[in-house]
């Protein structure tokens, strides 16, 4: 597994490091702007940061899916399939790499946003009263900073969960495509088609389930459904790879 | 070594080694290469190499000494034996081919007595011509 992870990181590191470097530049600009009281620099910095965060979130699963597609449909597949590693390990390494990159991004952007928020709070000369009024408008009376952080964590968690289940479903779709088409044309469209079918099914099931669940439990239920989705497609995908896939 | 691939390769290697003994390239008592080295140098399968040594041993040309390898039998007569064997082989081939064409024994003897290598003759002629032009 360690060897698999080593090479998955090698294959994905360029894009991810670029995003982190751009984020660092954005943060640098923000800090510079705040020190020099240069609004335009600060603003540019925060825009760069926001874009990098959004791009990063999307690029990790895109890159992972694209990488698997290329590996399944070219002779580079031999690199993975000649090694004495099970499909579960191979797929596991891929999803784990995606999780780790997303986590790294989460931590980095999380730290940056906390630092930046703190700077803005101090610089704006806002009072505690203004802050609690702002918080109340978001989450109702008594909504504290820690509540906000928890809420943000939930949203991020749900997004992560969603991204991972989407990615795993897409892995499965790509493996189905590769197994069925075995190099014939139309691979991209075929895997996209399978994915869309799975996606629609997943969304409707999740939607119907969460609709009947009380609000307090909705997050937990969504998280469970995402986890179930990831696990289900992981086993389906690795089983298909082992029994039916020819490269 | 270029093999005639329609004839057993082990035989051809056996003959090649016997030739080396006959010509004095290898001496009685010399150590022969290991099976694997023989395989690499002749570009043959190691199993074939092993068979070569088996045959040489059976024909009392070589002997395997436990843990030390295969050696040419330390027999001072061996070179002559090999020369005779090679000579017999080539002569038999020559006689067979020539009688196959219709020559008889007497004609063969006459041909051999008068024989000179045409290649040698050409070189000689070339040398003579050069002498003439130089003069």
């Amino acid at each position, binding site marked *: 597994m360690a*060897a698999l992870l*080593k*090479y998955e990181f*090698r*294959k994905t590191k360029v894009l991810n490091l670029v995003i982190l470097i751009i984020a660092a530049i954005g943060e640098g600009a923000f800090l510079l702007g705040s020190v020099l009281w240069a609004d335009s620099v600060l603003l540019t910095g925060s825009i760069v940061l926001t874009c990098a965060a959004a791009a990063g979130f999307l690029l990790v699963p895109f890159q992972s899916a694209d990488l698997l597609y290329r590996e399944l449909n070219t*002779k*580079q*597949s*031999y*690199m993975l*399939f*000649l*090694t*004495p*590693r*099970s499909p579960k390990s191979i797929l596991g390494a891929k999803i784990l790499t995606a999780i780790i990159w997303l986590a790294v991004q989460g931590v980095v952007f999380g730290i940056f946003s906390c630092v930046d928020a703190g700077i803005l709070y101090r610089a704006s000369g806002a009072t505690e009263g203004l802050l609690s009024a702002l918080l109340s408008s978001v989450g109702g009376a008594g909504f504290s900073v820690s509540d906000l952080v928890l809420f943000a964590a939930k949203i991020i968690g749900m997004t992560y969960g969603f991204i991972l289940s989407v990615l795993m479903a897409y892995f499965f779709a790509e493996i189905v495509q590769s197994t069925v088409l*075995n190099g014939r044309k139309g691979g991209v469209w075929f895997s996209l088609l399978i994915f869309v079918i799975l996606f629609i099914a997943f969304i409707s099931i999740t939607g119907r389930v969460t609709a009947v669940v009380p609000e307090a439990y909705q997050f937990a239920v969504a998280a469970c459904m995402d986890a179930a989705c990831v696990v289900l497609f992981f086993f389906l995908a690795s089983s298909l790879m*082992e*029994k*039916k*896939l*020819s*490269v | 070594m270029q*093999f*005639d*691939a*329609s*004839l*057993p*390769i*082990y035989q051809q290697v056996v003959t090649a080694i016997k030739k080396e003994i006959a010509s004095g390239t290898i001496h009685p008592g010399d150590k022969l290469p290991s099976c*694997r080295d023989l*395989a*690499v140098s*002749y*570009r*043959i*399968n*190691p*199993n*074939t190499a092993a*068979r070569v040594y088996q045959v040489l041993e059976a024909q009392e040309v070589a002997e395997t000494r436990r843990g030390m390898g295969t050696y040419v039998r330390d027999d001072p007569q061996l070179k002559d034996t090999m020369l005779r064997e090679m000579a017999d082989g080539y002569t038999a081939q020559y006689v067979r081919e020539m009688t196959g064409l219709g020559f008889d024994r007497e004609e063969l003897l006459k041909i051999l007595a008068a024989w000179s290598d045409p290649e040698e003759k050409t070189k000689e002629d070339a040398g003579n011509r050069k002498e003439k032009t130089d003069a």
Partner: protein
Amino acid sequence: MLETKNLVKKFGSKTAVDDVSFTIEPGKTYLLLGPNGSGKTTWMKIAATLTKPTSGNVYWDGEPVGIESRKKISYMPTESYFYNWMRVADVGTYYRDFFEDFDEGKFREMLARLDLAPDARVRDLSSGMNAKLRLAAALSRYASVYLLDEPLNGIDLVARDQVLDTVIAAMTPDAAIVLSSHLVEEVESIASTAVFIRDGKILETRDTEELRDTDGQSLADRYRLLMR
């Protein structure tokens, strides 16, 4: 022992391997001879677990080929398959990371003999150099079975000698080597068993020296006879 039992592989309507059964025994060097598309590569890929059979299977040590057999079988494909971003030395590192029986020293030695620079980029290699790299990677493992698909393809005359020498050096009583090659005359002398294949079926399996001894035919002669 690598046993093939009633192996069938179909690609759509085409049958690449048509109910093939045979055994690969250690200590022997097999030469698969047959025209293009006769099933040689398909069989190797199935034995290497890259392709799944339609029916029947290949068994290593009694078990269908899978993760365990990959540890013992070293496959050299005809296609170039290394990651483009790798350098020659990285291929060695990759093999070392995944295969316990990989000898990095042997790999480096082979690179030197075959004139491959360790820091050359895989994507810059000519097809001949790529072939040499694939060979070096496959033969630097201490495997029980070596499957070499057209190891002399794209390799210049002088390097072919080096390749053959390297293959001979890999022949031990515990290992089996299976080669497929179009250059029958060049590899004839190193094979112990010839397997003639056409249209996915094995026409004949012969001990090479026995063929010469009994029938007075070279592998090339026999091939022409069987494939006409």
